[in-house]
């Protein structure tokens, strides 16, 4: 198979895909693996990907369904969770604490609910678009979205109550 623009495509979309994958997995290594898996599948059907209205959307769909599916979660010898990466500078500590809370809250969600939250409020997809990506009905998306938001709220509120100093709301308004 010739490259046929695949390298340029990867250079263009790897960053956005990694960000989505990172939100879905909460882990650098696994995010890279997930993107790698999606890109291998895309390469296998590269001609079809190129014909898609949005090749990025096509590959993102592969990525999300790969994550949600049981098979992806069973595959992994490569699935490893890391701790929060070290970052230099005390001025970043607040942001790190906040993002760690969000990461922990996302982990409380089921893979599908997490995918819905990420697609709806990170990718800014509509309910219908999210439903198409996940292969489910818009009403299912709506249900997952409501439950996901409620679960996030519960988790963040509980964390704030347990440790007011780490309140996510306090940090964002300070």
């Amino acid at each position, binding site marked *: 198979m010739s490259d046929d623009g695949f390298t340029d495509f*990867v250079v263009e979309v790897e960053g956005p895909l990694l960000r989505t994958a990172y939100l879905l997995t909460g882990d650098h290594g696994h995010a890279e693996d997930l993107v790698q898996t999606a890109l291998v599948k895309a390469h296998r059907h590269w001609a079809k990907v190129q014909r898609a209205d949005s090749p990025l959307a096509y590959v993102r769909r592969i990525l999300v369904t790969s994550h949600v599916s049981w098979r992806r979660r069973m595959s992994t010898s490569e699935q490893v969770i890391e701790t929060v990466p070290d970052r230099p500078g005390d001025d970043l500590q607040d942001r790190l604490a906040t993002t760690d809370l969000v990461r922990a809250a996302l982990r409380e969600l089921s893979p599908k609910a997490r995918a819905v939250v990420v697609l709806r409020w990170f990718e800014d997809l509509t309910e219908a678009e999210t439903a198409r990506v996940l292969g489910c009905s818009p009403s299912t998306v709506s249900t997952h979205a409501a439950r996901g938001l409620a679960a996030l709220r519960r988790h963040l509120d509980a964390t704030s109550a347990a440790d007011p100093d780490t309140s996510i709301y306090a940090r964002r308004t300070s």
Partner: protein
Amino acid sequence: MSTDVRTLLHDLAADAPRGRGEETADLVVDLHRAQDRRRLRWAGVAAAIAVVVAVVPVLVDRSGPTDASAVAAGGTTGVESLFDAPTRGSLADDADAVAVALGASWQTGITDAAAGQILDPAPENRHVAFVGEVRGGQVWALVLGRTSGQLAYSWFVDPDPADGLALQPAGVPSRTTAAAPIGLLDVAGGSGYLVVVARPGDQVRYSPAVTGLFTADTTGFEDLPSADGVVQTGVQLPPAGVQAAPGISATSGAGEVPARWVDSFDSSRPFGPSAWTSVESSELPSDPSYGPLIQRCMVDAGWGVSVSVNGSLSFDGLLTGEGVDAFWADLDRCETSTGYR
């Protein structure tokens, strides 16, 4: 709340790993060319375990207490990466054994296994994390390596080292990360025997039946007796009929490294170029007729494929490398004949 979530998600996404661009593209192309399949060792192993457990309803530790004495003393706590941890195991001080482990081939012999071909660090970039005697007089070794910007590992086994140590790969080399514990499980005879190598000072935890990796639920995980971050012990295997697989995690002063699967093999079976393998097509359910059409064609070709929840076709079973190639050849033919290719 929705606005907050949007902002918070973007904040978190800013911590995502940076892409490697052309290097990633090259890696992906290599992976595809090397092996257009995906090995799901544990999916198959779980099935094998289910059969075993059907015969042995209650699996207990038959290997006796943890052989902590076999774990070499030494090592220090606070090591950031397993790669930098000292070699452990009863043969850690045996220079010849360490040299054999360092020089063992990472090629699995399972066709051109993607991971095996890609994850083959140069000997100078390898480190023996563990080499020692385990149950039944076998010698196991865990070797880590750095290659293509990735940290990888490979388990090696010599089931009968009496005639000189000759280590063979116990699985396909895989990626890992610095803090992750790495385990190998022998399921021979339906009696699980587990070795886990973690960073010195880490407490290893184990669950025989993990169904997901990305939840905070660690129900069922229990501490394993360990010495210097190394576990050598008999363990329970998953109960019959449960689609789950054994998982390990580790805790340290920095927190918990959540679960990952352990690798496995069956030391009672001949080593060779075959393994439980799962292959799946990459098609997605954009066209609902794809699955049934291709499934019919593949069944006619002799493949008992199923349609996964995400719409892709899959086959789980004992496949040689040639079998995997045959699967993809038939899938290509079916996709062509039905107009999908």
